[in-house]
């Protein structure tokens, strides 16, 4: 029970820090917006084409954005010298990871939700009829991105060139999420939408595998 109590206290701290400045959310949203607009210049989408590749673009933009957004996750603690205090304050260091990945998932989801209407308008894809399925995919994929990203940002924060390093470590690791989420989203945005359960299950498996790995090895990531 102490794990849950610790996690919720730390999650409160993460959310408070972010919503005081809203730095992360604003920069992430603006970044995704810029990428989506730039894509449209690079490809000049028509309505039929955009059904084909818009979902891929969306996930690529989200992946790039998340590799930037996850950067300050542990860097902030490092710069403010608060990591040791955090570690001392909880009995199980897994709580630190759980809180951070929950916060990151929430931020990513918020950014996705705010951008979805814009994406639908810009790329002319109907999202309303399949909104609930999209939300499920967004949630599971954002969770996966956040689990892997939180773990790796703990690694990259301790290295040189950390700003460049995180995307290099994270993006290849997230290929399964990109491939599967893009495919599932594509079939949802199809003329005759259908749900790919196998894909949704697959993202779920990714989440479980990496969450287990983080649970097993997380404490070593924070060793002094």
């Amino acid at each position, binding site marked *: 029970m102490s794990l849950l109590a610790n996690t919720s206290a730390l999650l409160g701290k993460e959310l408070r820090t972010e919503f005081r400045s809203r730095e992360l959310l604003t920069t992430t949203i603006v970044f995704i917006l810029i990428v989506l607009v730039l894509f449209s210049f690079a490809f000049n989408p028509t309505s039929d084409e955009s059904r084909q590749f818009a979902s891929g673009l969306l996930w690529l933009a989200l992946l790039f954005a998340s590799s930037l957004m996850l950067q300050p996750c542990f860097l902030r603690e490092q710069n403010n010298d608060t990591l040791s205090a955090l570690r001392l304050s909880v009995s199980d260091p897994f709580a630190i990871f759980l809180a951070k990945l929950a916060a990151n998932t929430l931020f990513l989801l918020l950014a996705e939700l705010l951008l979805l209407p814009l994406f639908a308008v810009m790329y002319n894809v109907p999202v309303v009829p399949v909104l609930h399925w999209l939300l499920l995919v967004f949630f599971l994929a954002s969770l996966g991105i956040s689990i892997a990203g939180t773990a790796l940002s703990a690694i990259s924060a301790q290295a040189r060139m950390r700003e460049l*390093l995180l995307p290099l470590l994270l993006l290849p690791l997230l290929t*399964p999420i990109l491939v599967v989420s893009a*495919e599932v989203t594509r079939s949802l945005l199809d003329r005759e939408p259908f749900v790919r359960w196998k894909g949704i299950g697959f993202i779920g498996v990714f989440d479980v*595998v990496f969450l287990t790995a983080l649970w097993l090895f997380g404490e070593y*990531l924070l060793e002094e």
Partner: protein
Amino acid sequence: MLKSAVIGAVVVFLVGAAAYGAFYIAPDEKTMHVLYRIFYFHAAAAWAGMTAFFVCFVANLLYVWRRDEKYDAVAISSAEVGLAFITVVLITGPIWAKPAWGIYWTWDARLTSTFVLWLLYISYLLLRTLIEESDRRALLSALFGIFAFIDVPIVFGAIRWWRTQHPAPVIMGGPGSGLDPTMRKVFFFSVLAMHVLMAFLIAERYRLEKLRTDLELVRREAEAT
């Protein structure tokens, strides 16, 4: 020194014998004729590379558990050697694919996941160069190595089920698959030769890493006095 020279000679002999088998003993293939002979090199190197990465994964786990520097040395050695073998695979693949399929590269499951695997281990080596302190470097890179290795089957599954010219597995690929008996013998001999070569390279690289850490130790002691 003499020992490694002798072992080196044996390794060269084995690899040479495997090449002889691939070129002269193995029969021609039905559709690709002589062209397929690169297979003995390509697939055997792939197996050896995968084994090297598996060795790296085990060494990573052992390091996290035991915190012994020698596991870190094994991990870096096998990661570098594995990367060399997978690079060979990624180069011989297109050489074979161009005449056989008509294109150098296709985004099929095994090619793409091998490429992602290659990228992951490049990142692993890159990470190692960016952490100064040796204990921290060993621990953090071991943890990244573990995450990367866990990711490999997931990457493969994702690409296989959602992006599908690579032939179906010929060996251990279920009914209908299989090699001609002579081909099989030559292939497994090539696999053996490549594994011996891999083990030899890892051992040599390990020795180098040990010398490097010893040198570092001596230098530090000299600076202290």
